[in-house]
């Protein structure tokens, strides 16, 4: 009698367990929701000008150079960039104020955007972050940029000399882009 009771008890238990399976429902479609969006960071360009060079430059302009810069317009970046930040940092230990302009040019030489930096004399390290994408400037500026024009003008005189050791103007820059890989 006891054995029969035990048999029915375990059979009922087995039935109960079989009704309450431990397996979870799977959803393979959620793989389509995967977002792979790494942030890629790199330096862009670096400018260093000693005060003597600024003093010797004619008509106030100590640099005006256009150089090829196709990092932004590379297909991989242009097609996948979601947002970006360009960080500029300048430092001026010379005795004169400086006006620095960075122009983003397209393949036809048209100016897409300009970053202007009126620099005090002297100036410690000053940082500026420029956002591109949502809440910032248009990403198309970066996508269409193939050249950059760096121009620097001396807003002071051509004779004074800073008392700092090795007086110079320095511009540093870096970029961080969030890319959509998946």
């Amino acid at each position, binding site marked *: 009698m006891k054995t029969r009771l035990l048999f029915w008890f375990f059979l009922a238990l087995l039935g109960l367990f079989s009704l309450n399976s431990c397996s979870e429902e799977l959803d393979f479609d959620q793989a389509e929701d995967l977002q792979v969006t790494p942030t890629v960071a790199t330096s862009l360009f670096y400018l260093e000008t000693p005060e003597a060079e600024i003093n010797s430059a004619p008509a106030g302009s100590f*640099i005006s150079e256009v150089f090829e810069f196709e990092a932004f317009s590379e297909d991989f970046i242009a097609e996948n960039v979601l947002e970006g930040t360009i960080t500029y940092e300048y430092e001026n230990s010379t005795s004169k104020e400086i006006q620095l302009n960075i122009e983003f040019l397209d393949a036809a030489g048209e100016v897409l955007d300009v970053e202007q930096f009126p620099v005090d004399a002297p100036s410690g390290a000053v940082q500026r972050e420029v956002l591109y994408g949502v809440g910032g400037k248009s990403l198309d500026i970066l996508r269409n940029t193939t050249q950059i024009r760096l121009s620097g003008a001396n807003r002071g005189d051509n004779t004074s000399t800073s008392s700092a050791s090795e007086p110079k103007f320095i511009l*540093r820059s870096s970029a961080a882009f969030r890319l959509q890989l998946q």
Partner: protein
Amino acid sequence: MQWGLLFGAVVGVYGQTKPLLYDFTELPQAMLQNPGTDSPIRWHVGVPLLSSYSLQAGISGFSVADLFANDGVDFTTKVGNLVRDDLNQRDRIAFESQIELISLGFQHKLDPSIYYSFGAYADFQFINYWPSDLARLAFDGNGGALDRRFDLEDLKIRADGVIVFHAGISKKISRKWRVGARAKLYSSIFQLQSTNNSGYFVTTQGQNNLLRNTLVADMQVQTSGLQEIQSIFQDGVVSNNTQRLQQLLLRRVLLGGDLGIGADFGFTFFQTPEWRWTGSVTDLGFIYHNKDVLNYTLNGAVSNEGVQFILPDAF
């Protein structure tokens, strides 16, 4: 005793690729696992392509059920947790398939303690260890990872397809011992391997500029037999490609690929009528890859801080 248990645990981790067959003496395929198997079979002939087919695939480090569970957790978050925390360079994705092409064997007429066996099978393997740091770099990028070294040595991948022709003999040499050996001739269809990589990618504060990206790499991908297969698929005309692919594979199956030799050794030791020990070493050998070889190498060191203009020498 304690050492015995430890030994067992270690061996268990790297056990037979087809553990279900091991010492299943009634099956002729058990002789491929241990040529010294004490088989009761008097003769055997396999049905080509049907008598033995095995396929196994596996992953370690996570379960598909956890990843794809309909649990309301964002899929990207789940993958992110795997990439950042759960998976490491010891986890792997592996696939192995073996198809028996020919199999036959028989007892020696005059000496039944000797068993001869012959055959051929196709073996395909793929194993990819999780490239932990590279996956993290691809998923999160180097932004916000200043001074973090992404190791390149995590990249370990191997894939190969090979036809194995074999001939074996086993003999009961005494009341307590049966030993066996099998000679093998390998014909490689293709091989890809990238295992001895080293180096790193790191983003640090720059000497002049804000950031410095440095890549130090000593990496190599070795392939053989793939270039010709790849060129067939790049030809464009599907019907021609199928024919060419068939011809190519047939040629390689019939010893037209890279060749190699190998051997298996095994034994059965009958300690008592109820207790026996078996052991085997398989695939001791090599394949000499010298046909259709294409290797890719990345070797060197480079650092970048962007375009630099240091006046007056810049222009």
